[in-house]
């Protein structure tokens, strides 16, 4: 009888201990976007973060563990955002999400400010993120997300085409230096030579849709679109007119096709050497070219050249320098998260130098923090292009910025197709601007 009692007590105690020994698992959900397969490390880094965090928790003897369920989506930016908003409206938002629409998200109360967190852990963690990047994460004086994926836009061109035209490598380097210290007209002239000589089908191919590359070209013409002091959008009539006129001229000269071909054509023809220059790509695109279009390492090293967008001669005279932009995503914590502070911790661990290096190595995109560079000394391409991340300009954060770009891009398509004149394009844009952006500033 006694034995049975003791047995029961021991069993209950044992069970109790067992139950107590099971750590409490907090599950966080995250939506991470590629788009496409290249971005997978952004998702696995969150899982890595959970792992590291758990190691620390285990060492401290705490009885809590973190689990991150990442849903990696290869959807494009638009559908991904739509999915997020739908899930949020249904009360089903994740804890962490990677998106770009900072102003919209912050204004609508979808995300939690990260200001406090970044300040607390600045000296420990955030200090060596390149300072220019924070501009792309700040809205109305507060930091809302953590940068983790940078890929500055720029001009890619084919050196082998130039060599076929008779230029030596030294001349190429002088005409198109890697720091962008030249003019856009030089690029255009070379493209025209290539087209006239029949070496390529397309001289210059730009994006088939709005995007940071499009904004980059506008900046090269000196067409500022955003006033950081007032926080308002700007429309520079003269610069835009020059922009549209130049594109029309290029179409007339057969350097740019009258309607932009689809992405597959842009990438495919460039890799095959049938396009002289593509303005639709960024520093990290070679990884996609290697994965999907068969670009070899030798070709990347010898035949392709890159530079940030050089200004036009007119813009240069006004002091515009070579410029590179990127519309990078941020790790956000949503307001529907039940563990926002823990989510911030996970994000911090997902942006360690280790995580940064993993992502850079896979995507060939430059690291966003200096210390990661030390871990990447064996990747020649990254070492060569790392500087671009220090000078990249984030796109303006304004709720109507992309509608503005959308309209401007539609107008560009109209001008290239010959439907409207550059003057009409600018007039239409001004009319739209006046109707939709009441506190926008128009510069004649």
């Amino acid at each position, binding site marked *: 009888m006694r034995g049975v009692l003791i047995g029961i007590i021991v069993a209950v105690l044992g069970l109790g201990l067992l139950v107590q020994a099971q750590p409490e698992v907090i599950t966080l959900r995250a939506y991470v976007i590629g788009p496409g397969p290249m971005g997978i490390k952004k998702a696995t880094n969150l899982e890595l973060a959970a792992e590291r965090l758990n190691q620390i928790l285990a060492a401290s003897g705490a009885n809590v563990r973190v689990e991150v369920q990442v849903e990696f989506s290869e959807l494009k930016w638009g559908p991904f955002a*739509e999915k997020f908003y739908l899930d949020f409206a249904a009360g089903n938002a994740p804890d962490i999400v990677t998106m770009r629409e900072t102003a919209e*998200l912050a204004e609508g109360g979808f995300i939690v400010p990260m200001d406090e967190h970044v300040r607390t852990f600045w000296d420990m963690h955030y200090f060596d993120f390149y300072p220019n990047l924070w501009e792309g994460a700040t809205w109305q004086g507060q930091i809302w997300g953590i940068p983790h994926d940078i890929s500055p836009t720029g001009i890619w061109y084919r050196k082998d085409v130039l060599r076929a035209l008779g230029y030596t490598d030294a001349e190429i380097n002088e005409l198109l230096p890697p720091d962008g210290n030249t003019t856009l007209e030089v690029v255009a002239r070379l493209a025209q030579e290539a087209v006239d000589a029949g070496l390529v089908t397309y001289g210059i191919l730009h994006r088939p849709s709005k995007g940071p590359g499009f904004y980059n070209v506008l900046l090269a013409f000196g067409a500022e679109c955003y006033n950081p002091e007032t926080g308002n959008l700007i429309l520079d009539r003269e610069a835009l007119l020059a922009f549209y006129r130049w594109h029309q001229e290029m179409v007339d000269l057969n350097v740019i096709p009258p309607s932009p071909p689809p992405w597959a054509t842009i990438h495919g023809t460039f890799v095959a050497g049938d396009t002289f220059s593509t303005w639709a790509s960024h520093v990290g695109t070679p990884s996609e070219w290697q994965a999907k279009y068969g670009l070899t390492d030798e070709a990347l090293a010898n035949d392709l050249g890159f530079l940030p967008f050089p200004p036009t001669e007119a813009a240069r005279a006004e002091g515009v320098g070579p410029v590179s932009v990127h519309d990078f995503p941020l790790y956000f914590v949503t307001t529907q998260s039940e563990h926002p502070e823990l989510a911030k911790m996970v994000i911090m661990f997902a942006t360690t130098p280790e995580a940064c290096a993993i992502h850079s190595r896979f995507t060939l995109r430059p690291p966003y923090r200096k210390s990661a560079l030390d871990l990447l000394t064996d990747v020649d391409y990254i070492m060569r292009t790392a500087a671009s991340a220090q000078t990249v300009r984030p796109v303006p954060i304004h709720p109507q910025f992309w509608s503005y770009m*959308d309209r401007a891009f539609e107008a560009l398509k109209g001008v290239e197709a010959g439907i409207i004149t550059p003057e009409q394009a600018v007039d239409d844009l001004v009319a739209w601007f006046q109707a*939709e952006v009441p506190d926008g500033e128009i510069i004649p």
Partner: protein
Amino acid sequence: MFREKLGRLALLAPFMGPGTLLIAFFYCVPVVLTLLIAFTDMGRTLQWHFIGWANFAKLFGVGARDPIVPRVITNTLVYVAGALPLTVIGGLLLAILSMRVHRGAGLFFRTVFFIPRAVPPVVWGFLWAWAFEGTPYGLFNGIRTAMGLPVVHWLIRYPMLIVILANGFLGISLAMLVFSSAIASIPRDLTRAAEVDGASEWQVARYVIVPMLKWPILTMTAWHLMSFLNSYVYIMLITGGGPYYATEVWALYGYHSAFSYYRYGYGASVMSLLVIVNLVLLLVVVRAFGMRRMLIRGKIEV
């Protein structure tokens, strides 16, 4: 009395119930909902506020006007003015012609012109997009290239024409069928009498057949008027409304505003105006044709 009514309701419920519910939910409610959304600024974030008449003000040009709207209105008018006559007159012409020729040939041609309607919209759109593609890989440009002619960028230079043709012939498919069967039911004696009196075939067509088709002609005109006002799927598939809003008709602008630019409120205001125009037109049609006549006809057909 009450019991009777309840009994009647119980009787009707399983039969009329499901249909009524579904129609109420997917037709009536959306009509009202579209109007409601039109008064908000619902956007991609799915957060909304009532903004009163602001959307409509932008459409009508009160205050700052949306610069695309005048162009869209013009496009819609041009499109309907082009496609409607094409459908009615073309359908009539083809119906008459196909009945004048040998029976087998007539059937063959009617089949050729009926195919647009038998084919899924995506395929019809794809067919036109391929036929008029601006490169030598397009059908007609491929033939031109083979004949030594240069390539024509049809879709960029003549987008409205192509869209009118594509939709017009779609309308002809139905119109031709309706007119053919109507012509077939004209009593033979009438046409024979006219021929005996020395009328040529064309005169018979003009003075005997067409007047007898007054009813189907009016029906087809009204039907297709509303159809073309509301249609945008084919245009979306062939030109996407472009280039640069050259073929953006009203209905397409509403769709794009909502689902491409994520301005649901604004798109709803565009669509609700269309719904209102539809209802007004319908009332006019019903008035003009006499609703009773249409119902009575139904009974007789038993």
